[in-house]
C-alpha cells in the first residue's frame, strides 16, 4: 500500500519533470540534472543523520568514489550507462561498509572526526596515482544520447532525464526503506542505542547498514554529477562539498526526504543566483565575496525562520502540521544537542529547543518515536 502510494507520487513527479525538462533551456536542464543528483546525496545523508542518528562530515568522499568509478568504467570498459551508475553506487556502498565498520565503534565528535579525515584524505589519491586518476586535471569522458531519441536530441536534456529518473527511484526506495522494519530499527537506534541493544537489536549491524545505504546514495550522486559534467576532478569533491551536503540536510529538514529535495535545490541554485544578482546590480567588480556573504545570510535567515528546516516550515505555513513530521526534526535536533553536551548542561539546551519548536509538538513526538521503538522491538522479538 505504501509502495503504491510512493510509486504513484514518483510517477506523477516524473511526468511533471518530463514536461518541464523539454521546456527548459540547455543550462536549466544542466542545473536540473545537478539538482537531481545532489538530492540523492542529501537524501542519503539525511537518512544517516536524521534517521540512524550517526553523523558524517565526509560524504563528499563517497561521491568522489562514485564519480571516479563512473569515469573509469566509461573510459576503460565502456559499460552501458545504467550499469555504470549502479556499479558506482555499489563501489561507494562497499567503501561505506568499510567506513561503517569503523563508525560502528565511534560516536558523536569522534565519528565526525573520522569521516572528516576521509573527506580530506581521499581526494589526495587522485594526485598519488596521476596515471590512473589524472591528478589535478582529473578525467574527461563523454556520454552520448541513445539512438532512439534522434540525432538532434539535446545531451543536456538526456542528462536531466537520467538524473531525475535516478533521483525518483532513489527516493521511492528510501521512503519505503524508512517505512520498513529497517527504518524503524534505525530510529530505535537513534533514539536510544542502549535501549535498542537491550531489546535485542544488533546495534553494530544497524549502524553499518545505515552507512552502506547512505554511501551508496552518495556514490550514485557522484556518478550522476560526473555524467552531467562529463569530467571528474579532485576539486569537485572537496571538504567544502561535504560540509555543504551537511548544510543542505539541516536546511531542508533533518530526517525528511522532502527536505532533501529542498536542500538539493538550495545547494545548486542559490549560489549562482546570488552571483548573477550581484553582477546585475554592479557589485561584482572587485568584490567577489558578495555571493558568499549572501549565501551565509540565506543560511542564517532560514535557520532563524525555520528552525525545523524548510520542509518543517512549509508544513507549518500550510497548516499541515502533523506531529510526527514537524516535531521530528526538532526532537532529533535536541537529541543531537544533548549528545554533544556534558550531562549536566542538558536542561537549558533542551528547553531552548522546546520553546522554539513548540513544546507540545515535541512532547507528542517523543511519544511517537517511543511507539516506533516499541514497534521495532516487537518485530525483532517475533523472529
Amino acid at each position, binding site marked *: 500500500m505504501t509502495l503504491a502510494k510512493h510509486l504513484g507520487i514518483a510517477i506523477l513527479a516524473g511526468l511533471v519533470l518530463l514536461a518541464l525538462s523539454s521546456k527548459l*533551456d*540547455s*543550462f*536549466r536542464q*544542466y542545473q536540473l540534472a*545537478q539538482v537531481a543528483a545532489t538530492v540523492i546525496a542529501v537524501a542519503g545523508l539525511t537518512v544517516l543523520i536524521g534517521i540512524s542518528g550517526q553523523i558524517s562530515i565526509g560524504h563528499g568522499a563517497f561521491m568522489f568514489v562514485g564519480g571516479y568509478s563512473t569515469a573509469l568504467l566509461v573510459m576503460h570498459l565502456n559499460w552501458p550507462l545504467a550499469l555504470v551508475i549502479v556499479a558506482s553506487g555499489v563501489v561507494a556502498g562497499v567503501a561505506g561498509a568499510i567506513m561503517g565498520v569503523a563508525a560502528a565503534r565511534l560516536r558523536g565528535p569522534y565519528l565526525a572526526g573520522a569521516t572528516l579525515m576521509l573527506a*580530506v584524505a581521499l581526494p*589526495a589519491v587522485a*594526485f598519488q596515482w596521476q596515471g590512473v586518476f589524472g*591528478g*589535478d*586535471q*582529473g578525467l*574527461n569522458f*563523454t556520454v552520448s544520447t541513445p539512438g532512439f531519441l534522434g540525432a538532434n536530441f539535446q545531451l*543536456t536534456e538526456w542528462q536531466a532525464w537520467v538524473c531525475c529518473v535516478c533521483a525518483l527511484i532513489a527516493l521511492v526506495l528510501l521512503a519505503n526503506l524508512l517505512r520498513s522494519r529497517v527504518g524503524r530499527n534505525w530510529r530505535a537506534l537513534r533514539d536510544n542505542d542502549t535501549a535498542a541493544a537491550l531489546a535485542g537489536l544488533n546495534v553494530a549491524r544497524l549502524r553499518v547498514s545505515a552507512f552502506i545505504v547512505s554511501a551508496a546514495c552518495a556514490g550514485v550522486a557522484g556518478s550522476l554529477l560526473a555524467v552531467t*559534467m*562529463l*569530467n571528474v*576532478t*579532485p*576539486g*569537485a569533491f*572537496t571538504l567544502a562539498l561535504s560540509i555543504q551536503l551537511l548544510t543542505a540536510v539541516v536546511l531542508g529538514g533533518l530526517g525528511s526526504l522532502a527536505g532533501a529535495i529542498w536542500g538539493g535545490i538550495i545547494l545548486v541554485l542559490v549560489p*549562482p543566483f546570488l*552571483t548573477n544578482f550581484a*553582477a546585475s546590480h554592479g557589485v561584482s*567588480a*572587485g568584490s*567577489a*565575496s558578495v*555571493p*558568499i556573504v549572501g549565501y551565509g545570510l540565506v543560511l542564517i535567515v532560514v535557520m532563524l525562520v525555520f528552525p525545523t528546516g524548510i520542509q518543517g516550515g512549509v508544513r507549518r505555513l500550510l497548516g499541515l502540521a502533523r506531529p510526527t513530521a514537524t516535531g521530528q526534526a526538532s526532537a532529533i535536533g535536541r537529541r543531537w544537542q544533548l549528545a554533544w553536551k556534558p550531562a549536566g548542561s542538558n536542561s537549558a539546551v533542551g528547553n531552548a529547543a522546546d520553546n522554539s519548536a513548540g513544546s507540545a509538538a515535541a512532547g507528542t513526538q517523543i511519544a511517537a518515536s517511543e511507539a516506533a521503538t516499541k514497534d521495532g522491538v516487537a518485530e525483532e522479538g517475533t523472529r
Partner: protein
Amino acid sequence: MNRSHRLGLAPIAGLAAVSLVLAACGSSNHASSGALQASAPGVTAKTITIGSTQPLTGIAAPGYDEIAPASNAYFQYVNAHGGVYGRKIVYKYLNDQYNSSMTTTDVRQLILQDHVFALFNGLGTPTHLAVAPFINAEKVPDLFVASGCACWNATSSWPETFGWQTNYIREGKILGSYIAANFKGKKIAYFYQDDEFGLDGVKGLSDEIPASQVVAKEPYNVAAANPAAEVGTLTAALKASGAQVVVAFAVPDFMALLRLSELSLGYNPTIVSSSVGSDPQTIAGLLNAFAKKSGSFGTSLIQGLITDSYLPSLGSSNSWIQLFTKIHNQYIPKVPLDGNVLYGLSVGYTFVQALFKAGRNPTRQDLVNAVNSGLPQGVSVAPYAYTSTDHDGMTGAYMAVIKQLALTPLGPVQVTDNTATGAVTTDSTAQPPAPTSGIP
C-alpha cells in the same frame, strides 16, 4: 600583502585630455560601410559579449584576481574610443575559485545561458583542461587561455582553442639556453611543480642543459597539505646536492616559500625562475606576508633573481608600457600596476586585434579564422606562431634580472619552437611601437 607600487592619480587629468584627442582619430582606420547586424550568438548591433572563468577568490586569487579587471579596463578604454566597429565589448567573467568543477558549471552558464560570442583568457591549466572538450564540442571560440601549457596547441581535437603566452616548453628552452651559456660547469638543480606546468618546463630545460650538470630534481605537490614543510624538505635536498644554480618552475606562493627556506638554511644559490613565479611585486608581497615582515624585506630577497619575460618590462620607456600606464591610471587606478595587470591589459589588446580582424559582422568561425591566419605582433616581444595547424601563441621571450621591483633585460629576445632539436635563436626584428590611438 604590501603593495607599495601604487601610481599617483595626478596624471589622469592630462591624460584624459589626450585621450579625448585620440578618440577623434581612434578607429578611423577601421571605418567601412554596411549595417551592423546580430551576426552570431553574443553579437548584437551594439555589443559583443564574451565570457571567462577566473579565480577571483580562493588559493590562486592573490595576484591572478587582477587579470580580468585589467582586461576589462582595456575593453572599457576601447569602448570609450569607438568600440570594435562601433560595438561595445561586454566582458562577463565568473569566479571559478580555481576549482575545475566550478569551471565546468561556469562555462556551461556562459555558453548555454549567457550565449557568449567567445571564451576569452580562461585561467588555469587544470581548470581549463576540464572544459576545453565541452567548449570545442559547442564550437565556441576559446581564445588565449591564461596558461602556458603546450596542450592548447591541439588543432585536430580542439580547433577552437588557442594559447597566448610563451608556453612552458619554450620558456624552459630559453632559460636552459641562457644557463648552458652562462653557468658552464656549474652544478644545477630543478625545483618544479609536479604537473603539466613544471613537467613541460623541465622538458624544455633538459633540451638545453647538459644532463651531466644537473645534480638534483625536486618536484613539489601544489596540493600539499603543509606547503611550507614540503618546500623546507625539498630545499634541504637542494642544498645537500651542492647545486650552485636552482632553476624554478613554481607558482608565486611556492617561489616565495623556496626563498624563505633558503634563507633559513643559509643556502644562497643563483635562482633562475620561469616568468610564472617572478613578478617582482607579487613575490615581494608574498615574502613579506609569509615572513610577517614589511618594507624592503621581500624586495631584498629577490634582487638578482634571473627570469624571462614575454611582455615589455614595466618601468621602461617602452611605448606599450606608456599606453598601458595611461589606461591603468584612468580605469583601474586602485590596483597596483604589476605584472598581472600588464598581462590582463596585454591579452585584452590581443583579443581586440583578433576581433577587428574578424570583420564587421563576425561569425564565430570568422574569429577563429582571423587568428588562424596569424596576428600582428603587437604587445608581444616575439612574433605569434598562429596558423591553422599551430595554436601556440608567442614564440619567445627575453632574459632579465630583477633590480628593485622591475625587470632589467639581459639581452635580446630569443625565439624557439616546441621540439627537442629546434634551436634557440635571437629575434632580430624590433617590436613595433604601440599605436598612438591605443587601439589596434
